[in-house]
């Protein structure tokens, strides 16, 4: 695997400027803060805003609430279908974004000179296509309960916020394959947990067929996670020249 960590003239630490940092600290130590208190002031401000905040958005009513009856919807009677739709929409958005994350990873893995044979591009392409199939599986699931799979649900929106940094890492030309594997690992870990929870949720909502379909997706996600975790570990050990 590529060597991804270089020795160089990193200038960010204080040891690069031993004389200057002494001057800085001498001044800091005799200059009191301009006001009393500590970071609790920030906590208090945040707390007041939380108390005043509205929700980030809503889930539109599913079809049955608009008069479109379905067998599936009948099973949700007496429960909160909006919470279920929110999480289905969240998973759909995550899988769709996952396709794009793998697209970027494939470009990175295929563009690095002397591409590592430990990470077959065919396997990455397979994982990418499985993410795409999971996205479509969720589209069907959401439609089956009369909801709109093109809706961006609140949890999908928030997951999108959380994932922004991952795409930044994967598309920065300067990041190493190892950096990108770590970003994908973060995504796969979260994805794996989320599928397990979604399966439980579907079962408790009485959607047994849906839960079974999701089990198949989870099995594929298990394989993704195991591979990415192993490749990342190997890349780090290789880089440190301590691989077995």
């Amino acid at each position: 695997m590529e060597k991804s960590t270089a020795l160089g003239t990193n200038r960010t630490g204080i040891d690069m400027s031993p004389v200057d940092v002494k001057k800085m600290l001498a001044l800091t130590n005799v200059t009191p803060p301009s006001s009393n208190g500590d970071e609790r002031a920030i906590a208090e401000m945040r707390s007041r805003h939380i108390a005043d905040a509205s929700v980030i958005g809503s889930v539109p009513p599913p079809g049955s609430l608009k008069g479109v009856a379905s067998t599936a919807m009948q099973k949700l009677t007496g429960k909160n279908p909006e919470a279920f739709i929110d999480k289905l929409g969240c998973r759909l958005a995550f899988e769709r974004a996952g396709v794009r994350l793998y697209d970027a990873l494939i470009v990175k893995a295929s563009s690095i000179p002397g591409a590592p044979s430990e990470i077959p591009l065919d396997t990455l392409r397979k994982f990418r296509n499985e993410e795409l199939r999971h996205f479509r599986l969720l589209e069907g699931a959401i439609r089956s309960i009369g909801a709109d799979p093109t809706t961006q649900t609140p949890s999908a929106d928030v997951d999108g916020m959380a994932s922004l940094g991952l795409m930044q890492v994967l598309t920065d030309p300067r990041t190493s394959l190892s950096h990108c594997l770590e970003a994908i690992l973060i995504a796969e870990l979260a994805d794996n947990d989320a599928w397990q929870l979604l399966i439980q949720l579907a079962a408790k909502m009485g959607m047994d067929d849906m839960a079974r379909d999701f089990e198949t997706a989870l099995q594929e996600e298990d394989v993704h996670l195991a591979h990415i975790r192993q490749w990342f570990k190997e890349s780090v050990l290789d880089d440190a020249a301590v691989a077995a």
Partner: protein
Amino acid sequence: MALNLFEEKGCPLDRQRFTWKELVQTPISKLDDDAFTRVRIILMNGIEMEALRFSHSCARMNQALQLPLAQLRRVEQHQATMVNGLLGADHSTLETTIGYEQVAIEVTAVVAQNEPDEYLAQVYRFGMLEDFDHLYRYSALLDRLEGKDANNITQCYTDIVPGRPTGVEHRAPQDDLREHYDRSRAAPISKMNALTILSGEQQTHNFYMNVGPLYADPVARQLYAEIASIEEQHVTQYESIIDPNETWMEKWLLHEANEVYNYYGCVQQESNSRVKAIWERCLDYELGHLNVVMDLFKQYERRDPAEILPQTLPEPIHYESQREFVRRVLSQEVDLRALGKQFVDKSREGPESQEYRAHMNSGGSPTQTVAAGYQWSPGTELARGTEYTGDMEATRDSKSARNTEFIR
């Protein structure tokens, strides 16, 4: 060797071309490049953005100049894109902000020392102490929001302690205007200084206005809101020191000369060879622009550009830590306030600014809240090892009044 503005022809305008690939080049390394490389990038982006803003204003008022303005503006647009793209995406918005404040401190400090007019030098020192405080406030936010050390960006060149507290920088508009230099008597360096600092402050204002709402955290949004308001005051201050009696052509000529002046300083001092090549290219292009505008100046004003421009450029801005100067100004002038166009001790500040400020700060001051008890420490304040305790939790009923006493 000094650059002769009347002999250097630069790159002819019709040969100033770019490809999209050239506009987006590999960024500098946030980690390995010198902080002053980032300072130059931020400043030159500001200079280019001012070139665009001036050019549009001029075009709206001068039909005959619209075509040459548009021709030069196309190149300025692409120079700005190429320059600003040198900042890598591994800079968080707050880290870039720290870079902006380092520019405002270090460049304004040099300008204040280069300025031959004592009143204008005082204007720069006054503004510099305010930006110095902004660095401290943003450093506190970077530490307390992202858990990062601002000194990773400033690289020990710039102190991180309070300046003139931002909470007292809020002034009534009449206390933000200054005397302008006299176009017929001011030294060329005074005109370069004014345009340079105006450009930097203007881009800082625009940047904070654009990025503040990108934060989820209301604390960050309010901090940017408060400091953006001061940057707007700074733009008001610095544009007012420029003689409004200059003709449009005179101003255009000075803008082009100032771009040459600043790129020349960058070329001379750049430590990153790849970035230096960009500065050289931009200098060559700007000399071409200057020659175009000198010809237009002769055509429209029937005057010799030598009436406006010096034959050789003034001494460039020196890109090095101004720590000792900044400390001296801090110790001597932190208590100055503005009264109309003059600077006075805080005891003599006028009622208009005090009343305006009292109202703005009446619901609390974000710059105070963010930096409550904050002292910069290498590796963040957490390196001093504060353990979490139950009393660190906010209570719903708590008020922020305790942080507002000094700003009344």
